């Protein structure tokens, strides 16, 4: 379950990527990559299933934070959003539909390029940038998201600080990540990767972070963490928001 392959490196080459500036021979390659990312039955199948669940949490958080009409079609109109570890844009495109001016960042240039190719086809004006969020001069954003990313990052403190620096005054941050529990070890690595629901080697359990640890990191960065919600799985309901944080959780943060 990975939107990103963010690894802290210095001197990452960075640059804005758009569908139009990619060379034709490369476009075909990135198009293929994007197709796989966006194939609901492809290797990102679990992310596709996760998407409505995390968007449900995100929508509630947006409505509460900015006191939006819950029926509004474009609650993020006039607002800027940054998705860190954007992959091929599975979250960026919904944010754009909700009205936001969206920037997606991914450490893997291939992902950012694939995202740009897909956005162009779908008719979205989204800015995709390859690079490290900490090393890029991006300005600040009303909404900052990093979904299923922090578990892949080695220096979590620096990563959280970089996210906090991108948050505009009065802004909202939303993070999701697997919890470090025996259940997540058994289900996400043992079972899900074992049967191929999640590509093998996606996760390293030791790198997972508990809600308490995340709270402490956010606190250091001057942010208050909201009440975390679990993302659970049951055969009947599939993935769903739950009170059980054992597997995966999603949480808001805002500046004090």
């Amino acid at each position, binding site marked *: 379950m990975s939107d990103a392959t963010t690894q802290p490196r210095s001197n990452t080459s960075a640059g804005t990527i758009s569908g139009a500036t990619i060379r034709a021979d490369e476009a075909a390659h990135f198009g293929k990559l994007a*197709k796989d990312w*966006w194939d*609901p*039955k492809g290797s990102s199948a679990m992310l*596709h*299933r996760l*998407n*409505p669940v995390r*968007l*449900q949490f*995100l*929508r509630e958080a947006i409505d509460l934070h900015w006191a939006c009409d*819950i*029926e509004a*079609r474009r609650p993020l109109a006039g607002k800027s959003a940054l998705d860190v570890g954007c992959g091929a844009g599975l979250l960026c*495109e*919904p*944010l*754009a*539909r*909700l009205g936001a001016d969206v920037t997606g960042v991914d450490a893997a240039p291939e992902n950012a390029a694939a995202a740009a190719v897909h956005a162009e*086809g*779908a*008719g979205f004006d989204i800015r995709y940038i390859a690079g490290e969020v900490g090393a890029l001069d991006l300005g600040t954003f009303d909404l900052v998201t990093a979904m299923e990313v922090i578990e892949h990052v080695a220096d979590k403190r620096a990563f959280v600080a970089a996210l906090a620096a991108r948050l505009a005054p009065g802004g909202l941050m939303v993070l999701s990540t697997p919890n470090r529990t025996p259940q997540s070890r058994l289900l996400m690595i043992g079972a899900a990767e074992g049967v191929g629901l999640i590509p093998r080697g996606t996760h390293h359990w030791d790198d997972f972070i508990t809600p308490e640890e995340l709270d402490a990191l956010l606190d250091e960065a001057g942010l208050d963490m909201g009440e975390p919600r679990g993302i659970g799985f049951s055969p009947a309901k599939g993935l769903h928001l739950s009170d059980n944080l054992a597997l995966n959780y999603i949480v808001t943060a805002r500046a004090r």
Partner: protein
Amino acid sequence: MTDKRDLLILGGGLVGMTLALAAAKKGLSSHLVDRADPASLTADGFDGRASAISTASWRLFRHVGLEETLEPHGCDIAAIAVLDQMKRGRLDFRPEPHEGTLGRMFANRQLRLALHEAAKKEPLISWHAPVEVLSRDRSEFGVSATLGDGTVLEAALMIGAEGRGSPSREEAGFKMASWDYSHRAMITGLDHSKSHENIAWEIFYPDGPFALLPMLDGPDGQHRSALVWTVDEKDAAGVLKLSDRAFLAEVHKRMGDLLGELTLNSSRSSYPLSFQHTAKIVEHRLALVGDSAHGMHPIAGQGLNLGLRDVGALVEVLDEALRLGLDLGDAQVLAKYEKWRALDSLMVMGATDSLTRIFGIPGKTASAVRRLGMAGIQRTSWLKAFFMNEARGVSGDLPELLKA
């Protein structure tokens, strides 16, 4: 510059058009395409078909703003009486006064008139009819249809609402469980001298059910009912050839003096009956609604109601997709619709199909068993409540649009 919309609805029948209207109420724009000329569909005497609108379906019409237009044209069904041929022993479904009616009968023509009028006024609906669809395309980022006049219509999601022979379903390659009842329904409107007292009659013959559905009185106070008479396919040609007078004599043989003297008040039409069901009702950027997904025997009047439940569920799922910023063609969104509808349609269809089969077995013993069974149902109140709730369409997990 093409006019890309949210939905491309293929088929502008009762279900397709209600979908376009219900979607528009949620802010979803649509192209609505139908091959038939709207004017001929609403012409007087186009067909004598009528529909039982369940309580749940009525709520959907209310949500899309048709209540006022339709209210004066509906005839309440106060009770359903079931007979095994014209033999003794009768099964009555009559709700208590506080439980409300079992549904209302409408001439399909009145439903069409109300829907057409509302669709014309709705700016979010772009209505293309009469026109043929030459080709359909579902690609990565959207869907399109090329029309007979060369127009290309684009949208995010294609909806197959063309009815039983749905070309969009055929193209998607869905496998249908289907069988032919090898029966044909004869449909016409009757005037009769006695009042129907708002009772719907289902008289079961080995050939199939003979149903009389109460309609509003005619302009000169004539009492009226709609007739749905199922005959074996091998006898159908003969029945179709009968003169009106001989046809009425055959009808009278089957219902006796239940409603007094009979005359025809519409042209006679006939429809072959079959059972169709597909477990898969969605594909890449395609969702099926109504008879495209499930054709059924009209025995219990549930076909249209089932289609309207599809509409309620699909619109609710799409509305949620809009709230979350998801693509309307998103596979997870469509999977939710499919999962929601699968159980409900199979349950209603299974019940209807077994009803047809139970009453389709000829012979005295079978008839006695049937009457015994009917007496059993008559005595068991929870079973009656179940049947009445099914008729009203209020059991199961209802979409918001079909709730009060």
